[in-house]
Protein backbone atom coordinates (compact mmCIF):
# COMPACT_ATOMS: atom_id res chain seq x y z
CA UNK A 1 0.00 0.00 0.00
CA UNK A 2 1.56 3.32 -0.99
CA UNK A 3 2.17 5.88 1.70
CA UNK A 4 -0.42 8.62 1.30
CA UNK A 5 1.31 11.19 3.45
CA UNK A 6 5.02 11.78 2.95
CA UNK A 7 6.86 11.94 6.29
CA UNK A 8 8.24 15.39 7.09
CA UNK A 9 11.94 14.93 7.60
CA UNK A 10 14.73 17.21 8.75
CA UNK A 11 16.46 19.16 5.97
CA UNK A 12 19.87 18.36 7.51
CA UNK A 13 19.14 14.80 8.70
CA UNK A 14 16.87 13.03 6.18
CA UNK A 15 16.43 10.07 8.51
CA UNK A 16 14.98 12.12 11.34
CA UNK A 17 11.43 13.49 11.64
CA UNK A 18 11.10 17.30 11.54
CA UNK A 19 9.48 18.92 14.54
CA UNK A 20 9.79 22.60 13.63
CA UNK A 21 10.42 25.09 10.86
CA UNK A 22 13.29 27.58 11.12
CA UNK A 23 11.67 31.04 11.10
CA UNK A 24 14.62 32.44 9.16
CA UNK A 25 15.21 29.98 6.26
CA UNK A 26 11.85 28.12 6.55
CA UNK A 27 13.60 24.72 6.43
CA UNK A 28 12.16 21.78 8.36
CA UNK A 29 14.38 20.87 11.30
CA UNK A 30 14.66 18.05 13.84
CA UNK A 31 15.14 18.48 17.62
CA UNK A 32 18.92 18.27 17.20
CA UNK A 33 18.96 21.18 14.73
CA UNK A 34 16.31 23.37 16.39
CA UNK A 35 17.39 25.96 18.92
CA UNK A 36 14.74 28.13 20.58
CA UNK A 37 15.91 31.71 21.00
CA UNK A 38 13.51 34.12 22.74
CA UNK A 39 10.82 31.49 22.13
CA UNK A 40 11.45 31.26 18.36
CA UNK A 41 12.96 28.22 16.61
CA UNK A 42 16.10 28.72 14.50
CA UNK A 43 18.27 26.14 12.75
CA UNK A 44 21.92 26.01 13.78
CA UNK A 45 23.24 27.68 10.61
CA UNK A 46 20.77 30.61 10.76
CA UNK A 47 21.49 31.12 14.44
CA UNK A 48 25.22 31.09 13.74
CA UNK A 49 24.72 33.54 10.85
CA UNK A 50 22.73 35.85 13.12
CA UNK A 51 25.50 35.84 15.71
CA UNK A 52 28.27 36.31 13.14
CA UNK A 53 26.65 39.13 11.16
CA UNK A 54 28.72 42.28 11.74
CA UNK A 55 26.92 45.50 12.56
CA UNK A 56 26.00 46.89 9.20
CA UNK A 57 26.20 50.50 8.21
CA UNK A 58 22.47 50.72 7.66
CA UNK A 59 21.88 49.78 11.31
CA UNK A 60 23.35 53.19 12.21
CA UNK A 61 20.93 54.87 9.82
CA UNK A 62 18.18 52.78 11.34
CA UNK A 63 18.97 54.26 14.75
CA UNK A 64 19.09 57.79 13.30
CA UNK A 65 15.80 57.36 11.45
CA UNK A 66 14.08 55.83 14.43
CA UNK A 67 15.46 58.49 16.77
CA UNK A 68 14.21 61.33 14.58
CA UNK A 69 10.79 59.71 14.15
CA UNK A 70 10.59 59.05 17.91
CA UNK A 71 11.44 62.70 18.66
CA UNK A 72 8.68 63.82 16.27
CA UNK A 73 6.24 61.43 17.95
CA UNK A 74 7.22 62.69 21.41
CA UNK A 75 6.55 66.28 20.38
CA UNK A 76 3.27 65.33 18.66
CA UNK A 77 2.17 63.44 21.77
CA UNK A 78 3.04 66.30 24.09
CA UNK A 79 1.33 68.97 21.98
CA UNK A 80 -1.73 66.87 21.07
CA UNK A 81 -2.64 66.22 24.70
CA UNK A 82 -3.35 69.86 25.72
CA UNK A 83 -4.96 70.60 22.36
CA UNK A 84 -7.43 67.70 22.78
CA UNK A 85 -7.94 68.53 26.46
CA UNK A 86 -8.86 72.08 25.46
CA UNK A 87 -11.39 70.72 22.95
CA UNK A 88 -12.91 68.27 25.43
CA UNK A 89 -12.97 70.60 28.44
CA UNK A 90 -13.86 73.82 26.68
CA UNK A 91 -15.92 72.61 23.76
CA UNK A 92 -15.40 73.74 20.19
Amino acid at each position, binding site marked *: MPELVAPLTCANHPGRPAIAICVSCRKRICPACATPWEGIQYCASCLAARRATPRQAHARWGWVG*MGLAAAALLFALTWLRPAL*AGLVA*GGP
Partner: protein
Amino acid sequence: MRRGRLATLAILDEAVERVFRELPGWAGLAGLATLPLRFLEVHFLNRALELGSHAGEHGRYLTSLSWLITLALPLAFWGRAVLAHAVTLTLSGERRLGRRPFQLRPAALAAGFYAYLAAQVLVLAFSFTVAGSALALILAGLAVATVPLQERVGPWAPLGTAFGNVRPLRVHVGLFLLAAVAFGVAFVNLAALFDVGLWAAQALPGLDLTRWEALLSLHNRHFRLLLAAGAALAVEPFWIAALAVTVHRKRAQQSGEDLRAWFEELVAERAA
Protein backbone atom coordinates in the same frame (compact mmCIF):
# COMPACT_ATOMS: atom_id res chain seq x y z
CA MET B 1 -6.80 21.05 20.88
CA ARG B 2 -3.38 22.61 20.41
CA ARG B 3 -3.61 23.36 16.74
CA GLY B 4 -7.11 24.79 16.99
CA ARG B 5 -7.89 28.47 16.76
CA LEU B 6 -6.60 30.57 19.61
CA ALA B 7 -9.43 30.97 22.14
CA THR B 8 -9.81 34.26 23.99
CA LEU B 9 -10.95 32.76 27.30
CA ALA B 10 -8.26 30.06 27.29
CA ILE B 11 -5.59 32.73 26.73
CA LEU B 12 -7.01 34.90 29.49
CA ASP B 13 -7.12 31.91 31.87
CA GLU B 14 -3.49 31.10 31.13
CA ALA B 15 -2.38 34.72 31.52
CA VAL B 16 -4.20 35.17 34.84
CA GLU B 17 -2.83 31.88 36.17
CA ARG B 18 0.73 32.74 35.18
CA VAL B 19 0.54 36.24 36.69
CA PHE B 20 -0.91 34.93 39.97
CA ARG B 21 1.26 31.82 40.33
CA GLU B 22 4.59 32.65 38.71
CA LEU B 23 4.83 36.39 38.12
CA PRO B 24 3.12 38.37 40.90
CA GLY B 25 6.34 40.27 41.61
CA TRP B 26 6.81 41.22 37.96
CA ALA B 27 3.18 42.35 37.73
CA GLY B 28 3.74 44.46 40.84
CA LEU B 29 6.84 45.98 39.29
CA ALA B 30 4.86 46.86 36.15
CA GLY B 31 2.19 48.47 38.33
CA LEU B 32 4.75 50.47 40.33
CA ALA B 33 6.50 51.68 37.17
CA THR B 34 3.14 52.80 35.72
CA LEU B 35 2.05 54.58 38.91
CA PRO B 36 3.70 58.00 38.15
CA LEU B 37 2.22 58.00 34.64
CA ARG B 38 -1.30 57.29 35.85
CA PHE B 39 -1.12 59.92 38.65
CA LEU B 40 0.18 62.53 36.22
CA GLU B 41 -2.56 61.69 33.71
CA VAL B 42 -5.19 62.07 36.44
CA HIS B 43 -3.69 65.41 37.50
CA PHE B 44 -3.61 66.64 33.90
CA LEU B 45 -7.20 65.60 33.15
CA ASN B 46 -8.48 67.06 36.43
CA ARG B 47 -6.75 70.39 35.76
CA ALA B 48 -8.02 70.52 32.16
CA LEU B 49 -11.58 69.80 33.28
CA GLU B 50 -11.29 72.35 36.10
CA LEU B 51 -10.19 75.00 33.62
CA GLY B 52 -13.13 74.10 31.39
CA SER B 53 -13.70 76.69 28.71
CA HIS B 54 -10.58 78.56 29.91
CA ALA B 55 -8.33 75.58 29.09
CA GLY B 56 -7.28 77.21 25.83
CA GLU B 57 -5.98 80.25 27.73
CA HIS B 58 -3.70 78.06 29.87
CA GLY B 59 -2.03 76.21 27.02
CA ARG B 60 1.49 76.65 28.39
CA TYR B 61 0.54 75.28 31.80
CA LEU B 62 -1.22 72.26 30.29
CA THR B 63 1.72 71.71 27.93
CA SER B 64 4.15 71.67 30.87
CA LEU B 65 1.96 69.03 32.56
CA SER B 66 1.86 67.15 29.28
CA TRP B 67 5.67 67.11 29.17
CA LEU B 68 5.71 65.54 32.64
CA ILE B 69 3.39 62.79 31.36
CA THR B 70 5.68 62.26 28.37
CA LEU B 71 8.68 61.98 30.72
CA ALA B 72 6.85 59.33 32.77
CA LEU B 73 6.16 57.22 29.67
CA PRO B 74 9.58 55.47 29.40
CA LEU B 75 9.44 54.17 32.99
CA ALA B 76 5.88 52.89 32.54
CA PHE B 77 6.82 51.26 29.25
CA TRP B 78 9.92 49.63 30.75
CA GLY B 79 7.95 48.10 33.65
CA ARG B 80 5.37 46.60 31.32
CA ALA B 81 8.00 45.42 28.82
CA VAL B 82 9.82 43.59 31.64
CA LEU B 83 6.53 41.89 32.57
CA ALA B 84 5.91 40.90 28.92
CA HIS B 85 9.47 39.50 28.77
CA ALA B 86 8.89 37.52 31.97
CA VAL B 87 5.68 36.06 30.51
CA THR B 88 7.49 35.13 27.27
CA LEU B 89 10.30 33.46 29.21
CA THR B 90 7.90 31.34 31.29
CA LEU B 91 6.03 30.36 28.12
CA SER B 92 9.36 29.24 26.63
CA GLY B 93 9.74 26.82 29.53
CA GLU B 94 12.00 28.84 31.84
CA ARG B 95 11.41 27.75 35.41
CA ARG B 96 13.83 30.00 37.30
CA LEU B 97 13.61 33.51 35.94
CA GLY B 98 16.05 35.19 38.30
CA ARG B 99 16.95 38.59 36.86
CA ARG B 100 16.49 37.47 33.25
CA PRO B 101 13.30 39.52 32.58
CA PHE B 102 15.43 42.65 33.13
CA GLN B 103 17.86 41.54 30.44
CA LEU B 104 16.07 43.07 27.48
CA ARG B 105 18.30 44.06 24.58
CA PRO B 106 18.58 47.88 24.41
CA ALA B 107 17.75 47.80 20.68
CA ALA B 108 14.58 45.77 21.36
CA LEU B 109 13.59 48.11 24.17
CA ALA B 110 14.18 51.21 22.01
CA ALA B 111 12.32 49.72 19.02
CA GLY B 112 9.42 48.70 21.25
CA PHE B 113 9.24 52.14 22.85
CA TYR B 114 9.20 53.76 19.43
CA ALA B 115 6.26 51.54 18.36
CA TYR B 116 4.56 52.35 21.69
CA LEU B 117 4.94 56.10 21.03
CA ALA B 118 3.40 55.69 17.57
CA ALA B 119 0.47 53.80 19.11
CA GLN B 120 0.05 56.49 21.79
CA VAL B 121 -0.21 59.17 19.11
CA LEU B 122 -2.89 57.05 17.41
CA VAL B 123 -4.72 56.70 20.76
CA LEU B 124 -4.89 60.50 21.04
CA ALA B 125 -5.69 61.03 17.36
CA PHE B 126 -8.61 58.56 17.50
CA SER B 127 -9.75 59.48 21.01
CA PHE B 128 -13.05 60.81 19.66
CA THR B 129 -14.05 57.47 18.15
CA VAL B 130 -14.74 54.40 20.27
CA ALA B 131 -13.60 51.78 17.74
CA GLY B 132 -10.56 53.81 16.66
CA SER B 133 -9.33 54.45 20.18
CA ALA B 134 -9.95 50.79 21.15
CA LEU B 135 -7.89 49.59 18.18
CA ALA B 136 -5.14 52.11 18.97
CA LEU B 137 -5.06 50.91 22.61
CA ILE B 138 -4.72 47.32 21.37
CA LEU B 139 -1.78 48.43 19.20
CA ALA B 140 -0.20 50.16 22.22
CA GLY B 141 -0.56 46.93 24.20
CA LEU B 142 0.95 44.94 21.34
CA ALA B 143 3.91 47.35 21.18
CA VAL B 144 4.64 46.36 24.81
CA ALA B 145 3.93 42.64 24.38
CA THR B 146 6.19 42.30 21.32
CA VAL B 147 9.30 43.95 22.83
CA PRO B 148 11.10 40.56 23.20
CA LEU B 149 10.52 39.98 19.47
CA GLN B 150 11.93 43.31 18.27
CA GLU B 151 15.08 42.63 16.30
CA ARG B 152 15.70 45.62 14.05
CA VAL B 153 15.77 49.36 14.59
CA GLY B 154 14.56 51.84 12.01
CA PRO B 155 11.53 53.97 11.23
CA TRP B 156 9.43 51.06 9.90
CA ALA B 157 10.72 47.69 11.15
CA PRO B 158 9.62 48.12 14.82
CA LEU B 159 6.12 49.14 13.70
CA GLY B 160 5.91 46.06 11.48
CA THR B 161 6.96 43.74 14.31
CA ALA B 162 4.55 45.29 16.81
CA PHE B 163 1.50 45.94 14.66
CA GLY B 164 2.01 42.88 12.44
CA ASN B 165 0.88 40.81 15.42
CA VAL B 166 -2.57 42.41 15.43
CA ARG B 167 -3.88 39.13 14.05
CA PRO B 168 -5.85 37.27 15.31
CA LEU B 169 -7.82 40.52 15.74
CA ARG B 170 -10.81 38.53 17.05
CA VAL B 171 -8.76 37.43 20.07
CA HIS B 172 -7.29 40.89 20.69
CA VAL B 173 -10.72 42.55 20.53
CA GLY B 174 -12.11 39.87 22.86
CA LEU B 175 -9.29 40.43 25.34
CA PHE B 176 -9.78 44.20 25.15
CA LEU B 177 -13.53 43.89 25.83
CA LEU B 178 -12.88 41.58 28.78
CA ALA B 179 -10.27 44.02 30.09
CA ALA B 180 -12.85 46.83 29.77
CA VAL B 181 -15.36 44.81 31.80
CA ALA B 182 -12.65 44.01 34.38
CA PHE B 183 -11.82 47.73 34.53
CA GLY B 184 -15.47 48.50 35.40
CA VAL B 185 -15.55 45.78 38.06
CA ALA B 186 -12.25 46.99 39.55
CA PHE B 187 -13.57 50.58 39.60
CA VAL B 188 -16.73 49.56 41.50
CA ASN B 189 -14.74 47.39 43.90
CA LEU B 190 -12.25 50.15 44.66
CA ALA B 191 -15.10 52.61 45.30
CA ALA B 192 -16.74 50.07 47.61
CA LEU B 193 -13.43 49.51 49.40
CA PHE B 194 -13.11 53.22 50.20
CA ASP B 195 -16.76 53.27 51.33
CA VAL B 196 -16.11 50.38 53.70
CA GLY B 197 -12.98 52.14 54.96
CA LEU B 198 -14.96 55.29 55.73
CA TRP B 199 -17.70 53.26 57.39
CA ALA B 200 -15.15 51.45 59.55
CA ALA B 201 -13.42 54.74 60.44
CA GLN B 202 -16.72 56.08 61.80
CA ALA B 203 -16.38 53.61 64.65
CA LEU B 204 -13.29 55.46 65.89
CA PRO B 205 -14.26 58.01 68.56
CA GLY B 206 -13.35 61.67 68.13
CA LEU B 207 -12.60 61.44 64.42
CA ASP B 208 -14.12 64.11 62.16
CA LEU B 209 -14.65 62.47 58.78
CA THR B 210 -16.61 65.29 57.12
CA ARG B 211 -13.68 66.34 54.94
CA TRP B 212 -12.77 62.75 54.06
CA GLU B 213 -16.39 61.99 53.12
CA ALA B 214 -16.32 64.90 50.68
CA LEU B 215 -12.93 63.88 49.27
CA LEU B 216 -13.78 60.20 48.88
CA SER B 217 -17.21 60.77 47.41
CA LEU B 218 -18.06 59.71 43.86
CA HIS B 219 -19.35 63.28 43.37
CA ASN B 220 -15.71 64.38 43.56
CA ARG B 221 -14.30 64.28 40.00
CA HIS B 222 -10.69 64.00 41.18
CA PHE B 223 -11.57 60.92 43.25
CA ARG B 224 -13.40 59.37 40.29
CA LEU B 225 -10.34 59.89 38.09
CA LEU B 226 -8.07 58.40 40.77
CA LEU B 227 -10.36 55.36 41.03
CA ALA B 228 -10.17 54.98 37.24
CA ALA B 229 -6.37 55.12 37.42
CA GLY B 230 -6.37 52.53 40.20
CA ALA B 231 -8.68 50.25 38.23
CA ALA B 232 -6.44 50.58 35.15
CA LEU B 233 -3.37 49.74 37.25
CA ALA B 234 -5.10 46.61 38.59
CA VAL B 235 -6.21 45.33 35.17
CA GLU B 236 -3.22 46.31 33.00
CA PRO B 237 -0.73 43.57 34.06
CA PHE B 238 -3.23 40.83 33.23
CA TRP B 239 -4.04 42.39 29.87
CA ILE B 240 -0.36 42.78 28.96
CA ALA B 241 0.25 39.16 30.02
CA ALA B 242 -2.70 38.00 27.90
CA LEU B 243 -1.33 39.88 24.88
CA ALA B 244 2.11 38.32 25.42
CA VAL B 245 0.51 34.85 25.64
CA THR B 246 -1.45 35.47 22.41
CA VAL B 247 1.64 36.63 20.51
CA HIS B 248 3.68 33.68 21.82
CA ARG B 249 1.00 31.09 21.04
CA LYS B 250 0.56 32.43 17.52
CA ARG B 251 4.30 32.32 16.86
CA ALA B 252 4.56 28.86 18.44
CA GLN B 253 1.95 27.60 15.98
CA GLN B 254 3.93 29.08 13.11
CA SER B 255 7.32 27.71 14.20
CA GLY B 256 6.20 24.28 15.43
CA GLU B 257 7.25 25.02 19.02
CA ASP B 258 3.76 24.11 20.24
CA LEU B 259 4.00 20.61 18.70
CA ARG B 260 7.39 20.07 20.31
CA ALA B 261 6.04 21.15 23.73
CA TRP B 262 3.04 18.87 23.24
CA PHE B 263 5.31 15.95 22.32
CA GLU B 264 7.42 16.56 25.44
CA GLU B 265 4.25 16.59 27.57
CA LEU B 266 3.08 13.30 26.03
CA VAL B 267 6.48 11.68 26.65
CA ALA B 268 6.48 12.94 30.25
CA GLU B 269 2.93 11.61 30.80
CA ARG B 270 3.87 8.21 29.38
CA ALA B 271 6.98 8.08 31.54
CA ALA B 272 4.89 8.90 34.62
